[in-house]
Structures are given as C-alpha cells and as structure tokens.
C-alpha cells in the first residue's frame, strides 16, 4: 500500500513539476523556434509549432545587416573586462578581511554592501555629465569602469564568504613551517580558493552581461553591447520577429549555459551569504 502511494505521489509531483517547468521555460523555447522561421511564419496566425519551414537565414541576416559580432564582442569585452578588474581589486581586499579581520571588518563589509543599494538612477545625472565631459559616453572603457564599480561589492562579498570557509588551521600550520605570506598565498590559499573564485567570476560575468541600466544609458552604437543592440529592435520600423528572435537567442545562449552551471552560487552571491 505504502509503496503504491509513493509511486503515485512521485508520478503526480513529477508531472506537475515538468508542466510548470515547461510553462516557465516556454517563452524562451518559443523565441528559439521563431528564430528558425521566416518572418511571415513568425507572424502567422494560427502559429505553427514545429511543422514550419526551418531556416537559418535569420542568423545570417542579423550579422550582415547589423554587424552582430561587433556588439557581441563589445559584450564580451565589457562583461569580461569589468569582471576581471573587479576580481583583481577584490581578491586582496577579501583575503585581508577573511584572514586578518579587525574590529572594523564587519562595518567595512556592511558599508560595502550598502554601496550596492544605491539606486543607479540616483547618480545617473552626474555620471552622465562626467562621462560627457571626459568623452567616455559610448566607450567600452567607460562601461567597463562603471560595471566594475557597480559589481565590486558583490565580488568582494562572495570572495569573502568563500575565503572564510578555508580552515585557518591550515594557514597556521603553513606559518609554523615557516612559509612566507607570498608562499602561503601561492601554495596554500590559491588551490583552496579556486572553486570560490570560479563561481564568483561566473556569476559576475552573468550580471555584467545582462546589465541593462548603464549600458542602455551610456552607449548608443560603437560601444553598444548586446543589451543595447537588442533594445534597438523595439523601434516600430524594426519589427522583425524572426530576426529579433535570432539575435536574442544568440545573445542569451552563452549566458544560459554559464548560468546553469552557477545556480548554486547564484543564491549565495545574490543574498550576500544570507541564504546558503
């Protein structure tokens, strides 16, 4: 009896979970399908779900007509650059707070967190004017800079929570053996910190790739990453659904894959360690 009930329960919860999972995923799937349709079919009523004339011409057109790769390259440079610079600044800071905490460490951490709470729109005006003055509008370096600063608190926090989990006994043992701080860093800490570093890198790449306030406001064409590029499809004359879908599919595919790898870290990174 009990066994029967369990099997039934598994069947029901499995069916329900798959149904809701599919519904939530559906808009992405529908977009992916539309990217392989002709413009006419993408617009057609009733819509065709699988039995349409599959074509990859949208992908070619998107590149030819709007230089897709240029914007993809901007996204890679901006997301990658800002993440790497943030890591370079954050690693020493997080290391120092995790292993040589002082009375003020907690206050410093919370203060850093509070800078992330500042709504970007609160400083839109001065940033825009500063960028205008220094010719940083629509420049890659300008976007790298602002996304780096914006994500720095999250990077420091994530690294801090990971570093804190490295057992201190190991460090003390290394110190007893006469290891210098440099050696300690290279041979003891780095190997143990690599998983944490990797997940921090991953999550921040994702956040920077999808950032759509500063990129929309500070870039127009030459430095425009994919967020801004896709937004240009919102203009009425740009209503090409199949091409929009193709461009969108390309823009989210790499990040979807990275994101799926980093689900666990996502919770931890975005809740500043409050939920693990």
């Amino acid at each position: 009896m009990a066994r029967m009930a369990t099997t039934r329960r598994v069947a029901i919860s499995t069916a329900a979970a798959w149904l809701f999972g599919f519904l939530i995923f559906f808009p992405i799937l529908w977009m992916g399908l539309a990217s392989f349709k002709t413009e006419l079919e993408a617009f057609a009523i009733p819509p065709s779900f699988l039995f349409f004339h599959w074509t990859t011409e949208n992908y070619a057109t998107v590149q030819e007509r709007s230089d897709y790769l240029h914007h993809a390259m901007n996204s890679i440079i901006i997301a990658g650059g800002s993440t790497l610079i943030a890591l370079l600044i954050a690693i020493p800071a997080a290391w120092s707070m995790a292993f040589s905490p002082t009375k003020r460490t907690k206050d410093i951490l919370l203060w850093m967190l509070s800078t992330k709470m500042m709504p970007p729109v609160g400083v839109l005006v001065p940033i825009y004017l500063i960028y205008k003055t220094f010719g940083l509008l629509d420049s890659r370096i300008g976007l790298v800079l602002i996304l780096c600063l914006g994500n720095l608190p999250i990077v420091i926090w994530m690294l801090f929570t990971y570093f804190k989990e490295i057992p201190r006994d190991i460090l003390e043992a290394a110190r007893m053996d006469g290891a210098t701080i440099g050696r300690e860093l290279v041979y003891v800490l780095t190997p143990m910190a690599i998983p944490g570093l990797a997940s921090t890198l991953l999550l921040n790449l994702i956040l920077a790739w999808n950032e759509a306030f500063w990129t929309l406001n500070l870039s127009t064409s030459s430095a425009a990453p994919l967020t801004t590029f896709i937004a240009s499809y919102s203009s009425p004359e740009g209503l090409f659904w199949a091409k929009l879908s193709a461009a969108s599919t390309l823009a989210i595919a790499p990040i979807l894959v990275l994101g799926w790898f980093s689900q666990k870290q996502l919770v931890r990174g975005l809740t500043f360690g409050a939920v693990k």
Partner: protein
Amino acid sequence: MATRQTQLLARSLLTPAVGLLFIWMIVPLALTIYFSTLHYSLLDPGSESFVGLENFRYFLTDPAFLASLQNTLVLVGSVLALTILLGIPLALLMDQPVIGRNFVRLMVIAPFFVMPTVSALVWKNLLMHPVSGLFAWLASLFGLTPIDWFNDVPLFAVILIVTWQWLPFATLILLTALQSLDEEQKEAAEMDGASAVSTFIYITLPHLARPITVVILIETIFLLTVFAEIFVTTGGGPGLQTTNIAFLIYAQALIQFDVGSASAGGLVAVVIANIVAFFLVRIVGRNLEA
C-alpha cells in the same frame, strides 16, 4: 612582529577596494546633491544658478511624481506578491521526489539569465502582441477577445514580464532553504500524525520566514529601479501609466535635459532605497555574527 607586519599588509591590501568604493559612493552622490540645488538645463548651458530647494518642490509636487510613485509601489508590491505566492508552491513542488529534478530546475531558473531587453521584447511581441501574439491566438481559441496588453493594461503587462524574470530567483532561494530543512523534524511531525497542512504551517513556513524576508528585501532593491523593461516596451506610456520613478528621472535627465530636477528626483530615489537597505543590512549583519 609578524602579526604587526601582517596587519600592515592586510590594511594595504584592503585600501584600493575601500578607496574606490568610497569615491564611487561619495563623488556622484555629492554631485547629485549639488546639482539638485541648481537651476541647470542642458538645453540652456551657462544659465546655472542656485535655487535652493526649488527643484525638490518642483519634483515632489509634479503630478508625474505622484503617478510614478504610485506605479513604482504597485509594480514592486505586485511582483513581490506574485513571485512569493507562486514561488512557495513551486519550491515545495520541486522539493518533492521528482524524476528529472535537475532538468526541471534548469527550465525554472532559465528566465533569470535572460537579459532584460530580450525578455521584454519577446514578451511584448511574440506573446503579447494583440493580433499576432501567442496569447491573442490562445484567447481566440477559447472565443475570447484578445487583450491589447500594452494599451489596456500596460502596467499589468510590465508586472507580468518582471514577475517572469524574478520568479526563478524567489523559487531558487526558497528551494535552497527547503533543502536545508531538517528532514527528521518533518518525519517526527508526520509520525505524530500531523497532517501535511499543519506540517507546512507549523514547521515549513516558520523555517521559510527568513529566506522570504531576504527575497523581499533583495527583490525590492532591484525592483525599485526597473528600467530596461519599461524602456523597450512602453517608454513609460501610454501617458504616465507605466512611468516609475527610475524612468521619470531618466526622462527628466536625458529627454528633457533638466539636470536640476532629475537630480532632486535621484535623491528621492536614494532615500527610498535606503529605507529598504537599512533593513537588509541589519539582517545580513546579524548573519555575519552567527
């Protein structure tokens, strides 16, 4: 000796990050405060003059401010309610023995990784278009009149899109919390003959209280400044129906070029966000000690 050296080193390692964040926090904020006291229009350069609190009076009494404040509150409140009310059952469901749970989780988490401009445009066109969208077709299947989402219920349409983006986040956090719930406690309750409902109310829900608070606070921080979804779908319209505070400030700064008034608005946004941040920082801070 070594300790003092270590401390010195620790401090010098910390300095660049603290310094940068300090500049990042102070300089733009100081400029915003400064601009907010000026009559300063980019269309009329050279006419800057000190006007005291005039910009605040103008911004706060502008009917657009009240409308956008109301829209902001409705947007934040609705998305919070929807993501939590849908997220709890979804997380409970995914915590059950489900065949292929990892795959289901991939599908559920996916929307969170879609860039805002893509989700907004896909929903606006492929799904919500009043003639050729999938929803219109579904409505016609059931003999209903298709809804013209962005004209008839524009704010609700934006709410739906943003909810779709944030539901994965709420679900994932609640699921993570559920998985750390002590199984023995639940089993003991079941052995004692507690029904599924009372187990949920007396054991599961209290356990979820903290993660729910965290979800509310973090989502609020991000939802207060929803921008891209409005920028690419409605442009704040029709009228002011989907203008939130973030979009209003953007419009004043970069469409009307009124630097003074936009700066005053920016400070209002900072104050609102700080009220939320106060509570979040306290919760996280408590956790640091534990």
